[in-house]
Protein backbone atom coordinates (compact mmCIF):
# COMPACT_ATOMS: atom_id res chain seq x y z
CA UNK A 1 0.00 0.00 0.00
CA UNK A 2 3.06 2.22 0.35
CA UNK A 3 2.70 5.41 -1.65
CA UNK A 4 -1.02 4.99 -2.28
CA UNK A 5 -3.41 7.74 -1.08
CA UNK A 6 -4.83 5.27 1.47
CA UNK A 7 -1.46 5.36 3.19
CA UNK A 8 -1.31 9.16 3.49
CA UNK A 9 -0.94 10.77 6.93
CA UNK A 10 -2.68 11.58 9.10
CA UNK A 11 -4.83 8.48 8.96
CA UNK A 12 -7.34 6.77 11.20
CA UNK A 13 -6.91 3.10 12.01
CA UNK A 14 -9.37 0.86 13.83
CA UNK A 15 -8.37 0.17 17.43
CA UNK A 16 -11.33 -1.99 18.32
CA UNK A 17 -14.99 -1.25 18.91
CA UNK A 18 -14.39 1.82 21.05
CA UNK A 19 -11.12 3.23 19.75
CA UNK A 20 -9.42 4.96 16.84
CA UNK A 21 -5.70 5.19 16.39
CA UNK A 22 -4.84 8.52 14.80
CA UNK A 23 -1.51 8.11 13.06
CA UNK A 24 -0.04 11.54 12.47
CA UNK A 25 3.63 10.83 11.76
CA UNK A 26 5.93 7.99 10.69
CA UNK A 27 9.08 8.96 12.61
CA UNK A 28 9.98 10.06 16.14
CA UNK A 29 10.55 13.82 16.14
CA UNK A 30 10.14 16.51 18.79
CA UNK A 31 8.29 18.55 16.17
CA UNK A 32 5.46 15.95 16.25
CA UNK A 33 4.42 16.86 19.78
CA UNK A 34 2.63 20.21 19.25
CA UNK A 35 0.36 18.51 16.69
CA UNK A 36 -0.42 15.56 18.95
CA UNK A 37 -1.13 17.68 22.03
CA UNK A 38 -3.33 20.01 19.96
CA UNK A 39 -5.39 17.09 18.64
CA UNK A 40 -5.74 15.68 22.16
CA UNK A 41 -7.05 19.02 23.42
CA UNK A 42 -9.57 19.31 20.59
CA UNK A 43 -10.75 15.74 21.16
CA UNK A 44 -11.45 16.57 24.81
CA UNK A 45 -13.86 19.33 23.89
CA UNK A 46 -15.37 17.68 20.81
CA UNK A 47 -16.10 14.31 22.46
CA UNK A 48 -16.95 15.81 25.88
CA UNK A 49 -18.72 13.16 28.00
CA UNK A 50 -18.38 10.50 25.30
CA UNK A 51 -14.59 10.51 25.71
CA UNK A 52 -13.13 7.67 27.79
CA UNK A 53 -9.38 8.07 27.37
CA UNK A 54 -6.71 9.65 25.18
CA UNK A 55 -3.28 8.07 24.87
CA UNK A 56 -0.77 10.31 23.11
CA UNK A 57 2.51 8.75 22.06
CA UNK A 58 5.47 9.51 19.79
CA UNK A 59 3.62 9.56 16.49
CA UNK A 60 0.03 8.72 17.39
CA UNK A 61 -3.01 9.53 19.48
CA UNK A 62 -5.29 6.69 20.62
CA UNK A 63 -8.83 7.98 21.14
CA UNK A 64 -11.09 5.78 23.29
CA UNK A 65 -14.79 6.67 23.36
CA UNK A 66 -18.03 5.36 24.86
CA UNK A 67 -19.54 3.04 22.23
CA UNK A 68 -23.03 3.51 23.66
CA UNK A 69 -22.98 7.23 22.83
CA UNK A 70 -21.01 7.06 19.59
CA UNK A 71 -20.61 4.46 16.88
CA UNK A 72 -17.11 3.95 15.47
CA UNK A 73 -18.28 5.74 12.30
CA UNK A 74 -19.51 8.76 14.26
CA UNK A 75 -16.29 8.94 16.28
CA UNK A 76 -14.25 8.69 13.11
CA UNK A 77 -16.17 11.55 11.55
CA UNK A 78 -15.57 13.75 14.60
CA UNK A 79 -11.82 13.07 14.56
CA UNK A 80 -11.59 13.61 10.81
CA UNK A 81 -13.28 16.99 11.28
CA UNK A 82 -10.74 17.99 13.92
CA UNK A 83 -7.83 16.91 11.74
CA UNK A 84 -9.04 19.07 8.86
CA UNK A 85 -8.52 22.28 10.86
CA UNK A 86 -5.67 21.17 13.10
CA UNK A 87 -3.00 23.69 14.03
CA UNK A 88 -0.06 22.87 16.30
CA UNK A 89 -0.09 23.97 19.94
CA UNK A 90 2.26 26.79 20.83
CA UNK A 91 2.44 25.86 24.51
CA UNK A 92 3.20 22.19 24.88
CA UNK A 93 2.23 19.92 27.73
CA UNK A 94 1.92 21.90 30.93
CA UNK A 95 4.10 24.55 29.28
CA UNK A 96 6.73 24.24 31.99
CA UNK A 97 10.37 23.29 31.93
CA UNK A 98 10.89 20.79 34.75
CA UNK A 99 14.31 20.77 36.38
CA UNK A 100 14.99 17.40 37.96
CA UNK A 101 17.77 17.55 40.59
CA UNK A 102 19.91 14.52 39.85
CA UNK A 103 22.70 12.91 41.84
CA UNK A 104 24.94 11.29 39.23
CA UNK A 105 27.13 8.76 41.02
CA UNK A 106 28.15 5.13 40.54
CA UNK A 107 26.54 4.25 43.90
CA UNK A 108 23.07 5.13 42.54
CA UNK A 109 23.93 5.01 38.83
CA UNK A 110 25.71 1.69 38.49
CA UNK A 111 25.81 1.81 34.67
CA UNK A 112 27.82 5.06 34.43
CA UNK A 113 30.98 3.00 33.89
CA UNK A 114 29.35 0.72 31.31
CA UNK A 115 28.01 3.72 29.35
CA UNK A 116 31.40 5.44 29.51
CA UNK A 117 33.09 2.34 28.20
CA UNK A 118 30.52 1.82 25.46
CA UNK A 119 30.65 5.44 24.26
CA UNK A 120 34.37 6.01 24.72
CA UNK A 121 33.68 8.98 27.02
CA UNK A 122 34.75 9.56 30.59
CA UNK A 123 32.12 9.31 33.34
CA UNK A 124 32.28 13.13 33.71
CA UNK A 125 31.63 13.56 29.99
CA UNK A 126 28.67 11.17 30.16
CA UNK A 127 27.18 13.23 33.01
CA UNK A 128 27.83 16.55 31.21
CA UNK A 129 26.39 15.21 28.00
CA UNK A 130 23.22 13.90 29.68
CA UNK A 131 22.62 16.98 31.84
CA UNK A 132 23.36 19.64 29.22
CA UNK A 133 20.34 19.06 27.00
CA UNK A 134 16.66 19.91 27.39
CA UNK A 135 14.48 16.93 26.57
CA UNK A 136 10.86 16.55 25.48
CA UNK A 137 8.41 14.05 26.91
CA UNK A 138 7.28 11.87 23.99
CA UNK A 139 5.02 9.45 25.83
CA UNK A 140 4.02 8.14 29.26
CA UNK A 141 3.72 4.42 29.76
CA UNK A 142 5.29 1.28 31.19
CA UNK A 143 4.27 2.41 34.70
CA UNK A 144 2.27 5.34 36.14
CA UNK A 145 4.17 8.59 35.51
CA UNK A 146 7.01 6.91 33.59
CA UNK A 147 7.99 9.47 30.91
CA UNK A 148 9.88 8.51 27.77
CA UNK A 149 12.06 11.54 26.91
CA UNK A 150 14.52 12.45 24.23
CA UNK A 151 16.32 12.65 22.18
CA UNK A 152 19.65 12.21 23.92
CA UNK A 153 22.94 13.09 22.21
CA UNK A 154 23.71 10.34 19.65
CA UNK A 155 27.13 9.91 21.24
CA UNK A 156 25.37 8.65 24.42
CA UNK A 157 23.42 5.97 22.60
CA UNK A 158 23.74 2.70 24.47
CA UNK A 159 21.68 -0.50 24.24
CA UNK A 160 19.52 -1.84 27.07
CA UNK A 161 20.93 -4.35 29.52
CA UNK A 162 20.81 -7.93 28.28
CA UNK A 163 19.04 -8.96 31.48
CA UNK A 164 16.70 -6.42 33.08
CA UNK A 165 17.12 -5.72 36.79
CA UNK A 166 14.34 -7.15 38.97
CA UNK A 167 14.04 -3.90 40.88
CA UNK A 168 15.15 -0.42 39.88
CA UNK A 169 14.93 2.03 42.81
CA UNK A 170 12.53 5.01 42.80
CA UNK A 171 13.94 8.09 41.07
CA UNK A 172 16.56 6.23 39.05
CA UNK A 173 17.63 8.24 35.98
CA UNK A 174 18.31 6.08 32.98
CA UNK A 175 19.05 5.94 29.26
CA UNK A 176 18.42 3.41 26.48
CA UNK A 177 18.97 3.92 22.75
CA UNK A 178 18.19 7.64 22.10
CA UNK A 179 15.87 8.03 25.09
CA UNK A 180 16.05 8.91 28.75
CA UNK A 181 13.66 8.44 31.67
CA UNK A 182 13.34 8.53 35.45
CA UNK A 183 11.59 5.70 37.33
CA UNK A 184 8.57 7.04 39.31
CA UNK A 185 8.22 3.82 41.32
CA UNK A 186 10.43 0.82 42.00
CA UNK A 187 9.84 -1.53 39.06
CA UNK A 188 11.82 -4.03 37.02
CA UNK A 189 13.86 -2.27 34.33
CA UNK A 190 16.50 -2.82 31.68
CA UNK A 191 17.74 0.72 31.06
CA UNK A 192 21.25 1.98 31.93
CA UNK A 193 21.16 3.75 35.29
CA UNK A 194 23.17 7.00 35.50
CA UNK A 195 21.95 8.48 38.79
CA UNK A 196 18.90 9.32 40.84
CA UNK A 197 16.55 12.30 41.05
CA UNK A 198 14.91 13.60 44.21
CA UNK A 199 11.88 14.85 42.22
CA UNK A 200 8.56 13.19 43.06
CA UNK A 201 7.51 12.00 39.64
CA UNK A 202 4.20 10.42 40.58
CA UNK A 203 2.03 11.40 43.51
CA UNK A 204 -1.55 10.19 43.92
CA UNK A 205 -2.31 13.15 46.22
CA UNK A 206 -1.15 15.78 43.73
CA UNK A 207 -3.46 17.52 41.26
CA UNK A 208 -2.80 15.80 37.94
CA UNK A 209 -0.86 12.96 39.64
CA UNK A 210 2.11 12.90 37.25
CA UNK A 211 4.83 15.57 37.35
CA UNK A 212 5.52 15.11 33.64
CA UNK A 213 3.09 15.22 30.71
CA UNK A 214 3.52 14.52 27.03
CA UNK A 215 5.04 17.62 25.42
CA UNK A 216 6.71 18.91 28.62
CA UNK A 217 10.35 19.99 28.65
CA UNK A 218 12.77 18.43 31.12
CA UNK A 219 16.32 19.15 32.24
CA UNK A 220 18.38 16.97 34.55
CA UNK A 221 20.41 19.20 36.87
CA UNK A 222 23.51 17.63 38.40
CA UNK A 223 23.52 18.08 42.21
CA UNK A 224 25.78 16.91 45.03
CA UNK A 225 24.84 14.08 47.35
CA UNK A 226 24.13 16.66 50.09
CA UNK A 227 21.81 18.70 47.88
CA UNK A 228 20.08 15.51 46.65
CA UNK A 229 19.43 14.36 50.20
CA UNK A 230 18.41 17.86 51.34
CA UNK A 231 15.71 17.76 48.64
CA UNK A 232 14.41 14.46 50.00
CA UNK A 233 16.34 12.05 47.78
CA UNK A 234 17.26 8.58 49.05
CA UNK A 235 20.95 7.91 48.31
CA UNK A 236 20.88 4.28 49.47
CA UNK A 237 23.34 2.57 47.11
CA UNK A 238 21.99 0.20 44.45
CA UNK A 239 23.37 -2.94 46.09
CA UNK A 240 21.69 -2.08 49.39
CA UNK A 241 18.49 -0.91 47.69
CA UNK A 242 18.24 -4.31 45.99
Amino acid sequence: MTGSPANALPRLESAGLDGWMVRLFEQIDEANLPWITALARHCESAFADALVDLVPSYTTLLVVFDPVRLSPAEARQTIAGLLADLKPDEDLGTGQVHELPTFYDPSVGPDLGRVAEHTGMTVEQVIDCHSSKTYRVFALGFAPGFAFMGLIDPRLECPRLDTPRKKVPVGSVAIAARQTAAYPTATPGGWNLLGRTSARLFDREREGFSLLRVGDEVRFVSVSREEFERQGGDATPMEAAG
Partner: protein
Amino acid sequence: MTAQSKAETAIRVHRAGPLALLQDRGRFGVRHLGVTQGGPADLYSWAWANYLAGNPWGTASLEITFGGLQLIAERDLDIAIAGADLGATLDEQPVPLWQRVTWKEGQKLIFASPVSGLRAYLSVRGGFAAEPVMGSVACVSREQLGGFDGWGSKLAEGDRLAIHTPEGKTAEGMTEAPGHARKDFREAPVLELLPGAQIGEFTGRSLYDAFNTWWRVDDRADRMGVRLLGPKLQCRIGSLISEGINLGGVQVPADGQPIALLNDRQTIGGYPRLGALSPLSASRLAQCLPGQEVKFVARGSGQVLRDYRAFLELFRLRRS
Protein backbone atom coordinates in the same frame (compact mmCIF):
# COMPACT_ATOMS: atom_id res chain seq x y z
CA MET B 1 -15.84 4.91 51.69
CA THR B 2 -17.83 7.57 49.97
CA ALA B 3 -19.40 10.47 51.83
CA GLN B 4 -22.92 9.63 50.63
CA SER B 5 -23.11 6.14 52.04
CA LYS B 6 -22.42 4.50 55.36
CA ALA B 7 -20.16 1.48 55.33
CA GLU B 8 -19.57 -1.20 57.93
CA THR B 9 -17.32 -4.22 58.07
CA ALA B 10 -19.41 -7.27 57.29
CA ILE B 11 -17.08 -9.98 56.00
CA ARG B 12 -14.01 -11.60 57.53
CA VAL B 13 -11.32 -13.24 55.40
CA HIS B 14 -10.73 -16.73 56.78
CA ARG B 15 -8.31 -17.82 54.03
CA ALA B 16 -7.05 -15.37 51.40
CA GLY B 17 -6.39 -17.74 48.46
CA PRO B 18 -4.08 -16.98 45.54
CA LEU B 19 -5.86 -13.98 44.00
CA ALA B 20 -9.00 -12.09 44.97
CA LEU B 21 -9.15 -8.49 43.76
CA LEU B 22 -11.59 -5.67 44.35
CA GLN B 23 -12.86 -4.44 40.97
CA ASP B 24 -15.22 -1.65 40.01
CA ARG B 25 -15.59 -0.67 36.33
CA GLY B 26 -11.94 0.48 36.23
CA ARG B 27 -9.72 3.54 36.23
CA PHE B 28 -10.48 5.91 33.36
CA GLY B 29 -9.25 9.30 32.18
CA VAL B 30 -5.70 8.61 33.40
CA ARG B 31 -4.34 6.29 30.73
CA HIS B 32 -2.29 9.17 29.27
CA LEU B 33 -0.32 9.11 32.53
CA GLY B 34 0.65 5.48 32.04
CA VAL B 35 -2.02 4.21 34.47
CA THR B 36 -3.70 1.02 33.31
CA GLN B 37 -7.50 0.65 33.27
CA GLY B 38 -7.98 -2.29 35.63
CA GLY B 39 -11.57 -3.37 36.21
CA PRO B 40 -13.15 -6.81 35.85
CA ALA B 41 -11.35 -9.09 33.38
CA ASP B 42 -14.77 -10.61 32.63
CA LEU B 43 -16.99 -7.55 32.40
CA TYR B 44 -19.95 -9.70 31.41
CA SER B 45 -20.05 -11.84 34.56
CA TRP B 46 -19.15 -8.88 36.80
CA ALA B 47 -22.13 -6.95 35.42
CA TRP B 48 -24.49 -9.88 36.04
CA ALA B 49 -23.27 -10.41 39.61
CA ASN B 50 -23.91 -6.78 40.47
CA TYR B 51 -27.26 -6.70 38.72
CA LEU B 52 -28.52 -9.79 40.54
CA ALA B 53 -27.29 -8.46 43.88
CA GLY B 54 -29.40 -5.35 43.29
CA ASN B 55 -26.45 -3.03 42.73
CA PRO B 56 -26.12 -0.21 40.21
CA TRP B 57 -23.63 -0.39 37.32
CA GLY B 58 -20.07 0.25 38.48
CA THR B 59 -20.42 -1.18 42.00
CA ALA B 60 -17.23 -2.76 43.38
CA SER B 61 -17.20 -6.57 43.48
CA LEU B 62 -14.63 -9.19 44.31
CA GLU B 63 -12.95 -10.94 41.37
CA ILE B 64 -11.88 -14.37 42.59
CA THR B 65 -9.34 -16.13 40.39
CA PHE B 66 -8.94 -19.89 40.66
CA GLY B 67 -10.50 -20.22 44.12
CA GLY B 68 -8.90 -21.01 47.47
CA LEU B 69 -10.80 -18.15 49.15
CA GLN B 70 -12.78 -18.57 52.39
CA LEU B 71 -14.96 -15.79 53.80
CA ILE B 72 -17.22 -15.56 56.84
CA ALA B 73 -20.24 -13.22 57.01
CA GLU B 74 -20.50 -11.09 60.13
CA ARG B 75 -24.14 -10.25 59.38
CA ASP B 76 -26.82 -11.40 56.93
CA LEU B 77 -26.00 -10.32 53.38
CA ASP B 78 -27.73 -10.48 49.98
CA ILE B 79 -25.20 -11.67 47.44
CA ALA B 80 -24.87 -12.98 43.91
CA ILE B 81 -22.04 -14.98 42.36
CA ALA B 82 -21.61 -15.04 38.58
CA GLY B 83 -18.86 -16.07 36.20
CA ALA B 84 -16.71 -19.11 36.81
CA ASP B 85 -17.98 -22.10 38.75
CA LEU B 86 -15.26 -22.40 41.38
CA GLY B 87 -17.16 -25.00 43.38
CA ALA B 88 -18.50 -22.36 45.78
CA THR B 89 -20.20 -23.61 48.96
CA LEU B 90 -21.99 -21.98 51.91
CA ASP B 91 -21.44 -24.09 55.02
CA GLU B 92 -20.59 -26.98 52.71
CA GLN B 93 -23.79 -26.67 50.64
CA PRO B 94 -23.31 -25.75 46.95
CA VAL B 95 -24.22 -22.11 46.21
CA PRO B 96 -26.36 -21.57 43.12
CA LEU B 97 -24.62 -19.22 40.69
CA TRP B 98 -26.18 -16.47 38.53
CA GLN B 99 -28.86 -15.73 41.14
CA ARG B 100 -29.41 -13.80 44.34
CA VAL B 101 -28.87 -15.76 47.54
CA THR B 102 -28.74 -14.95 51.25
CA TRP B 103 -25.45 -15.40 53.07
CA LYS B 104 -26.33 -15.68 56.74
CA GLU B 105 -24.25 -14.36 59.60
CA GLY B 106 -21.59 -16.86 60.63
CA GLN B 107 -21.79 -18.93 57.44
CA LYS B 108 -18.53 -19.75 55.70
CA LEU B 109 -18.42 -19.09 51.94
CA ILE B 110 -15.72 -21.16 50.24
CA PHE B 111 -14.45 -20.88 46.68
CA ALA B 112 -12.66 -24.20 46.07
CA SER B 113 -11.22 -24.68 42.57
CA PRO B 114 -12.29 -24.28 38.94
CA VAL B 115 -15.10 -26.48 37.61
CA SER B 116 -15.92 -24.18 34.68
CA GLY B 117 -14.06 -20.95 33.96
CA LEU B 118 -11.36 -19.15 35.94
CA ARG B 119 -12.80 -16.00 37.53
CA ALA B 120 -15.88 -15.71 39.75
CA TYR B 121 -17.49 -12.42 40.76
CA LEU B 122 -18.93 -11.99 44.23
CA SER B 123 -21.27 -9.02 44.52
CA VAL B 124 -22.76 -8.04 47.84
CA ARG B 125 -25.86 -5.84 47.93
CA GLY B 126 -24.63 -2.31 48.69
CA GLY B 127 -21.20 -3.05 47.27
CA PHE B 128 -17.76 -3.43 48.79
CA ALA B 129 -16.50 -0.18 50.30
CA ALA B 130 -13.01 1.24 49.80
CA GLU B 131 -11.45 4.65 49.24
CA PRO B 132 -11.14 5.32 45.48
CA VAL B 133 -7.66 6.12 44.17
CA MET B 134 -7.59 8.21 41.00
CA GLY B 135 -11.33 7.73 40.68
CA SER B 136 -11.52 3.97 41.17
CA VAL B 137 -11.12 1.19 43.71
CA ALA B 138 -9.91 -1.24 40.98
CA CYS B 139 -7.00 -3.18 42.46
CA VAL B 140 -3.82 -3.20 40.35
CA SER B 141 -1.04 -4.68 42.46
CA ARG B 142 1.70 -3.87 39.93
CA GLU B 143 0.83 -0.15 40.13
CA GLN B 144 0.16 -0.20 43.86
CA LEU B 145 -3.26 1.32 43.22
CA GLY B 146 -6.74 0.52 44.53
CA GLY B 147 -8.05 -2.41 46.51
CA PHE B 148 -9.25 -2.28 50.09
CA ASP B 149 -6.17 -0.42 51.38
CA GLY B 150 -5.68 1.82 48.32
CA TRP B 151 -2.18 0.43 47.69
CA GLY B 152 -3.07 -2.62 45.66
CA SER B 153 -2.39 -5.06 48.50
CA LYS B 154 -3.64 -8.61 48.34
CA LEU B 155 -6.24 -9.88 50.78
CA ALA B 156 -4.82 -11.39 53.96
CA GLU B 157 -6.24 -13.78 56.51
CA GLY B 158 -8.09 -11.83 59.19
CA ASP B 159 -8.92 -8.84 56.93
CA ARG B 160 -12.36 -7.45 57.56
CA LEU B 161 -14.12 -6.13 54.48
CA ALA B 162 -16.55 -3.22 54.58
CA ILE B 163 -19.86 -3.07 52.73
CA HIS B 164 -21.88 0.04 51.90
CA THR B 165 -25.23 0.03 53.67
CA PRO B 166 -27.81 -0.46 50.91
CA GLU B 167 -30.87 1.72 50.54
CA GLY B 168 -34.22 0.09 51.27
CA LYS B 169 -34.92 -3.12 53.09
CA THR B 170 -34.74 -5.62 50.26
CA ALA B 171 -32.99 -5.75 46.93
CA GLU B 172 -35.10 -5.03 43.89
CA GLY B 173 -35.15 -6.33 40.34
CA MET B 174 -34.34 -9.63 38.71
CA THR B 175 -33.13 -12.30 41.11
CA GLU B 176 -32.06 -14.96 38.59
CA ALA B 177 -30.27 -14.73 35.26
CA PRO B 178 -32.19 -16.40 32.40
CA GLY B 179 -30.70 -19.69 31.22
CA HIS B 180 -29.30 -18.28 27.99
CA ALA B 181 -27.31 -15.66 29.92
CA ARG B 182 -25.47 -18.23 32.06
CA LYS B 183 -22.18 -19.25 30.52
CA ASP B 184 -20.58 -22.64 30.47
CA PHE B 185 -16.92 -21.79 30.13
CA ARG B 186 -15.88 -25.37 29.34
CA GLU B 187 -16.85 -24.90 25.69
CA ALA B 188 -14.01 -23.73 23.43
CA PRO B 189 -14.92 -20.16 22.46
CA VAL B 190 -14.77 -18.46 19.08
CA LEU B 191 -13.48 -14.95 19.76
CA GLU B 192 -14.55 -11.97 17.64
CA LEU B 193 -11.61 -9.97 16.36
CA LEU B 194 -11.90 -6.58 14.68
CA PRO B 195 -8.97 -6.42 12.26
CA GLY B 196 -6.44 -3.64 12.85
CA ALA B 197 -4.15 -1.60 10.65
CA GLN B 198 -1.22 -4.03 10.56
CA ILE B 199 -3.28 -7.06 9.53
CA GLY B 200 -2.15 -6.63 5.92
CA GLU B 201 1.48 -6.93 7.01
CA PHE B 202 1.09 -10.57 8.04
CA THR B 203 1.91 -13.15 5.39
CA GLY B 204 -0.98 -14.91 3.63
CA ARG B 205 -0.10 -18.17 5.32
CA SER B 206 -0.05 -16.49 8.73
CA LEU B 207 -3.45 -14.89 8.14
CA TYR B 208 -4.84 -18.29 7.23
CA ASP B 209 -3.29 -19.76 10.37
CA ALA B 210 -4.49 -16.89 12.55
CA PHE B 211 -8.16 -17.58 11.80
CA ASN B 212 -8.09 -21.35 11.24
CA THR B 213 -6.14 -22.52 14.26
CA TRP B 214 -7.45 -23.66 17.58
CA TRP B 215 -4.99 -21.67 19.73
CA ARG B 216 -4.01 -23.12 23.08
CA VAL B 217 -4.03 -20.85 26.14
CA ASP B 218 -0.54 -20.80 27.64
CA ASP B 219 0.06 -20.83 31.38
CA ARG B 220 1.60 -17.37 30.92
CA ALA B 221 -1.83 -15.79 31.24
CA ASP B 222 -2.86 -13.12 33.71
CA ARG B 223 -4.77 -9.84 33.92
CA MET B 224 -2.17 -8.13 31.71
CA GLY B 225 -2.55 -10.54 28.83
CA VAL B 226 -3.10 -14.08 27.64
CA ARG B 227 -0.43 -15.74 25.53
CA LEU B 228 -1.64 -18.20 22.91
CA LEU B 229 0.32 -21.12 21.50
CA GLY B 230 0.09 -22.35 17.92
CA PRO B 231 1.73 -21.94 14.52
CA LYS B 232 4.30 -19.15 14.32
CA LEU B 233 2.74 -16.03 12.76
CA GLN B 234 4.99 -13.95 10.54
CA CYS B 235 4.64 -10.21 10.11
CA ARG B 236 6.63 -8.03 7.72
CA ILE B 237 6.91 -5.42 10.51
CA GLY B 238 9.02 -6.50 13.48
CA SER B 239 8.13 -3.64 15.79
CA LEU B 240 6.35 -0.31 15.81
CA ILE B 241 7.10 2.96 17.52
CA SER B 242 5.25 2.52 20.83
CA GLU B 243 1.61 3.56 20.70
CA GLY B 244 -1.51 3.26 22.84
CA ILE B 245 -3.02 -0.23 23.06
CA ASN B 246 -6.72 -0.74 23.56
CA LEU B 247 -8.40 -3.50 25.55
CA GLY B 248 -8.35 -6.80 23.68
CA GLY B 249 -5.52 -5.81 21.34
CA VAL B 250 -3.93 -8.98 19.91
CA GLN B 251 -0.23 -8.32 19.48
CA VAL B 252 2.32 -10.60 17.86
CA PRO B 253 5.89 -10.35 19.13
CA ALA B 254 8.88 -11.74 17.25
CA ASP B 255 8.25 -15.32 18.43
CA GLY B 256 5.02 -15.31 16.38
CA GLN B 257 2.80 -16.33 19.31
CA PRO B 258 -0.09 -13.90 19.83
CA ILE B 259 -0.84 -12.21 23.13
CA ALA B 260 -4.35 -10.85 23.77
CA LEU B 261 -4.08 -7.86 26.07
CA LEU B 262 -6.49 -7.52 28.96
CA ASN B 263 -7.38 -4.96 31.62
CA ASP B 264 -4.01 -4.57 33.38
CA ARG B 265 -1.91 -4.32 30.17
CA GLN B 266 0.70 -1.61 29.79
CA THR B 267 -0.83 1.50 28.25
CA ILE B 268 1.54 1.67 25.26
CA GLY B 269 3.45 -0.94 23.30
CA GLY B 270 5.18 -1.55 20.03
CA TYR B 271 4.31 -4.96 18.60
CA PRO B 272 2.26 -5.31 15.42
CA ARG B 273 -1.33 -6.36 16.05
CA LEU B 274 -3.82 -8.54 14.25
CA GLY B 275 -6.53 -6.30 15.65
CA ALA B 276 -8.60 -6.10 18.81
CA LEU B 277 -11.05 -8.54 20.38
CA SER B 278 -14.57 -7.28 20.93
CA PRO B 279 -15.08 -6.31 24.59
CA LEU B 280 -17.28 -9.36 25.21
CA SER B 281 -14.74 -11.68 23.58
CA ALA B 282 -12.01 -10.24 25.82
CA SER B 283 -14.31 -11.05 28.75
CA ARG B 284 -14.78 -14.58 27.45
CA LEU B 285 -11.05 -15.15 26.99
CA ALA B 286 -10.47 -14.09 30.61
CA GLN B 287 -12.42 -17.21 31.68
CA CYS B 288 -10.12 -19.63 29.82
CA LEU B 289 -7.83 -21.89 31.79
CA PRO B 290 -4.34 -22.75 30.54
CA GLY B 291 -4.61 -25.58 28.02
CA GLN B 292 -8.07 -24.55 26.78
CA GLU B 293 -8.46 -23.80 23.08
CA VAL B 294 -9.80 -20.69 21.38
CA LYS B 295 -10.32 -19.62 17.80
CA PHE B 296 -10.49 -16.15 16.21
CA VAL B 297 -13.14 -15.02 13.78
CA ALA B 298 -12.78 -11.70 11.92
CA ARG B 299 -15.74 -9.35 12.35
CA GLY B 300 -16.76 -5.89 11.23
CA SER B 301 -18.00 -3.49 13.86
CA GLY B 302 -21.74 -3.59 12.98
CA GLN B 303 -23.08 -6.70 14.71
CA VAL B 304 -20.41 -6.53 17.43
CA LEU B 305 -21.53 -3.00 18.29
CA ARG B 306 -25.21 -4.01 18.40
CA ASP B 307 -24.42 -6.91 20.74
CA TYR B 308 -22.25 -4.81 23.05
CA ARG B 309 -24.81 -1.99 23.22
CA ALA B 310 -27.58 -4.46 24.04
CA PHE B 311 -25.44 -5.87 26.83
CA LEU B 312 -24.52 -2.46 28.29
CA GLU B 313 -28.01 -1.04 28.02
CA LEU B 314 -29.46 -3.85 30.11
CA PHE B 315 -27.13 -3.05 33.00
CA ARG B 316 -26.45 0.64 32.69
CA LEU B 317 -30.13 1.51 32.90
CA ARG B 318 -29.87 0.95 36.60
CA ARG B 319 -27.84 3.80 38.00
CA SER B 320 -27.41 4.92 41.58
